[in-house]
C-alpha cells in the first residue's frame, strides 16, 4: 500500500469516527459561559410589528388597549405547590426633576434601533433612513435609505458593516420573500430571492431573519387566518395556515428550505446559536427552541400563559448550568387557567398579574414553572416595562411612555436573583419615550418620541424625540445630536 492510499484510509476512518451531532448540553453550556445577554431584550416588546416595524406605534396601541380594559392591578395568590412567596413591591422614591434638553434641538424622530456593540449602533428614522455610529454615538453617518420602505421588522447588523433585512409584500399569493444584504453599513444593498410563502390575501403574516454569523442565517415566515380561539380560551384566535423557513450557509447567496420551521416572527436569541420562537398570537402556548442557529427546533408547551394563550413580555436567558429560562408576563385579563389548555373563559387566572419563570431541562421539549413573581407594572413602570438581561439572573427593569398626566418618574429596578427580589436603584427621569436597554445599572439609553401628549414632572409638555443616553442610572439624560 502506497502512502497516498494509506492517507486516504486514515482520512476515511477519522471522518467516519467523528461524531455528527453536537450534544445539546454542550451548546447550552457554551452559551452560558459569558452570561450572555439577550439580543432582543425588551420585556415589553413593542417591536417586530409585521405591518410597519414601528415600535412606538405598537407600544402606543398596547398602552391604549391596557387603559381601555381598565386593568385591575391585583396580584392574586396561588395554590400551586411550586409557588414562592410573592415579594413586596419596591417603594418609589421622591420625584426627581428632569434634565432633558428641549425637543426642538432634536427634530429627528427615531423609529427603531439597536446597539450592536457599545461602539456600534444603528437607527432608523421616520423617513426610513438608516444611520450608523461606530464611536459610541458621538458621530453618526449621514442618512442612508433602507432597501425598502416596508421592511418586515428591522434590519439586523452583525457589526458596523454587515447587515441583513427581509421583505415580502403584504397581500399577494404566494408571497415572494426577499432578503437584503449589505456589507458597507447600508450604503448599498443586494437582494436575494429566498422563496415564496403561501398566503391568503388579507391574512396576518409574519417574517423574520436572523444571522448567527456572516455565513449562517435563517428566515422564518408564517401566514395566519382569523379563527376561533384555542379550546378554553376567550376571544378570537389566529389559525396557522402555512409556515416556511429557509437557511443559508454561504452568507445569503443561496437558501435551503427548512423541514419543519416554527411559525412566528417573535424570536429571541441568547446567543447566535440558541434562540426561542413564541407564537404570534393565540397560536397555542408553545415555545420552539433551537440550539443550532435555527436549523432544527424542539417545541414544548409553556405553563400558564394566560388569556391570550401566547406568552408576551419575554426575557430569554440560559442559566450557567445550561438550562434555558423563559420569563413572561401573564395577562391580567379575565380568562385563563393555571392548567394550559383548560381555562374557563371569564374566570381569573391563578397567575394573572404575575410573571412566570419557566425552565426547560431537555432543550425545549418540556417546560416547567420554576417560580413566579408579581408583575412589575404596578411599581410604576407602566405597561411599557422593559427588562434588560445583563446575565441569567441579573436583570434591570424600567419603563417609559408615561401617561399624559403623570408626574411621577419611572423607577429603575434591579434583580440579582432572576426576579425573585427587586431593588430600586434609580429613576428614569422624565424621558418621554421608551427605555431602550441597559449595559449595566448606570449606562443606558432611551428613545424619545414626540408624542406631544406627555408631560414632564414639572407639568411642561415634553416635545422631545431622538436618542438619549445616561451614565448615571437614568438620573439625567443627554440627547444625541443629529
Amino acid at each position, binding site marked *: 500500500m502506497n*502512502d497516498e492510499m494509506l492517507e486516504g*484510509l486514515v482520512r476515511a476512518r477519522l471522518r467516519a469516527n467523528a461524531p455528527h451531532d453536537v450534544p445539546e448540553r454542550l451548546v447550552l453550556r457554551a452559551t452560558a459561559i459569558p452570561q450572555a445577554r439577550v439580543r432582543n431584550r425588551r420585556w415589553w416588546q413593542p417591536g417586530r410589528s409585521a405591518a410597519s416595524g414601528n415600535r412606538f406605534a405598537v407600544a402606543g396601541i398596547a398602552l391604549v388597549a391596557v387603559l381601555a380594559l381598565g386593568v385591575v392591578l391585583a396580584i392574586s395568590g396561588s395554590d400551586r405547590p411550586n409557588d414562592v412567596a410573592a415579594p413586596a413591591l419596591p417603594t418609589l422614591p421622591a420625584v426627581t426633576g428632569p434634565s432633558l434638553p428641549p425637543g426642538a434641538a432634536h427634530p429627528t424622530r427615531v423609529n427603531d434601533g439597536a446597539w450592536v456593540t457599545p461602539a456600534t449602533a444603528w437607527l432608523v428614522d421616520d423617513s426610513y433612513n438608516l444611520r450608523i455610529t461606530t464611536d459610541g*454615538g458621538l458621530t453618526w453617518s449621514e442618512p442612508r435609505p433602507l432597501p425598502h420602505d416596508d421592511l418586515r421588522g428591522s434590519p439586523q447588523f452583525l457589526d458596523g458593516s454587515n447587515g441583513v433585512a427581509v421583505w415580502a409584500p403584504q397581500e399577494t399569493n404566494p408571497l415572494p420573500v426577499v432578503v437584503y444584504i449589505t456589507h458597507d453599513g447600508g450604503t448599498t444593498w443586494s437582494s436575494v430571492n429566498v422563496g415564496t410563502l403561501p398566503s391568503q390575501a388579507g391574512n396576518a403574516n409574519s417574517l423574520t431573519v436572523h444571522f448567527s454569523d456572516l455565513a449562517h442565517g435563517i428566515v422564518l415566515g408564517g401566514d395566519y387566518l382569523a379563527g376561533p380561539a384555542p379550546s378554553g380560551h376567550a376571544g378570537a384566535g389566529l389559525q396557522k395556515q402555512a409556515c416556511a423557513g429557509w437557511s443559508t450557509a454561504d452568507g445569503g447567496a443561496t437558501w435551503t428550505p427548512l423541514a419543519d420551521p416554527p411559525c412566528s416572527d417573535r424570536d429571541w436569541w441568547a446567543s447566535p446559536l440558541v434562540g426561542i420562537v413564541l407564537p404570534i398570537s393565540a397560536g397555542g402556548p408553545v415555545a420552539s427552541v433551537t440550539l443550532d442557529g435555527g436549523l432544527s427546533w424542539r417545541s414544548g408547551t409553556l405553563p400558564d400563559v394566560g388569556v391570550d394563550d401566547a406568552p408576551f413580555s419575554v426575557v430569554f436567558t440560559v442559566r450557567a448550568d445550561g438550562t434555558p429560562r423563559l420569563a413572561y408576563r401573564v395577562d391580567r385579563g379575565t380568562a385563563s387557567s393555571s392548567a394550559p389548555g383548560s381555562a374557563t373563559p371569564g374566570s381569573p387566572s391563578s397567575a394573572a398579574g404575575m410573571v412566570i419563570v419557566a425552565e426547560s431541562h431537555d432543550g425545549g421539549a418540556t417546560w416547567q414553572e420554576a417560580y413566579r413573581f408579581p408583575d412589575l407594572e404596578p411599581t410604576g413602570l407602566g405597561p411599557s416595562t422593559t427588562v434588560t438581561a445583563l446575565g441569567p439572573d441579573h436583570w434591570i427593569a424600567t419603563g417609559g411612555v408615561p401617561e399624559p398626566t403623570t408626574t411621577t418618574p419611572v423607577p429603575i429596578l434591579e434583580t440579582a436573583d432572576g426576579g425573585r427580589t427587586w431593588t430600586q436603584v434609580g429613576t428614569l427621569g422624565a424621558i418621554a419615550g421608551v427605555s431602550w436597554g441597559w*449595559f449595566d445599572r448606570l449606562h443606558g439609553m432611551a428613545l424619545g418620541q414626540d408624542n406631544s401628549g406627555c408631560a414632564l414632572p414639572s407639568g411642561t409638555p415634553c416635545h422631545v424625540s431622538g436618542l438619549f443616553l445616561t451614565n448615571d442610572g437614568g438620573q439625567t439624560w443627554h440627547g444625541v445630536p443629529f
Partner: protein
Amino acid sequence: MTLGERMAETEAATGERLEREQAFGRLVARELAGSYRTASLLLGDPAEAEDVTQEALERAWQRWDQLRDPNLAGAWFGRILINACRDRLRSKQRSRVRWIEEPMTSDSAASFAERDALDRAIAGLNADQRIALVLRYYLDLPVEAIAEQTGAPVGTVKSRLRLALGAVRAGYEAQERAGNKR
C-alpha cells in the same frame, strides 16, 4: 463634564464587555461543532470531548483579553483546545481510544477487520502523534498550520506525522497478514 466626555465615559465603561460577549458568541457559533468533533477524535470519548471542549471555551473566555486580533480567534481557540486535549491525554496516559458508534455506510470499501485495525493503530498513537494525525487528515491543515497550532517546529510535526503513519501502516499490514493466513 461635557456631553462628549460623558458619552466617551459611557463607551469606556461599557466598552469591551458587550463586544467581548458578542465576539465570543460568534466564536462559539463558528467553532463549537468542529472543536467537539476534533476533541472526540483526539480523546476517543464523546463525553470526555464534551467536557474538554467546554473547559477550552471557558479558558478562552477567561483569557479573551489576551486575544490581540479578533480575526484570529478561531486559530487562537484551536490552540487552547489542542492544549486541553493534550493535557487530558497525557494525564490519563491513555493506552486505547474508545471510538464512538460505527457509522453504517461511510466507508464500506474497507472490511470491518481493516477498519478495526486502523482504529486500533490510531488509538495506539501517543498524544503528539495523534494530534498531528487528526489535524492533518481530519482538519486538512498543512504542516505549517499544525506547527502553529501545536507550538512545535515544522520538522517535529513532519516527524510525528511520519511516525504516526508508520504505526498505522504497521497495524494495518499486520491485520492483512493475519487475514491472509486465515
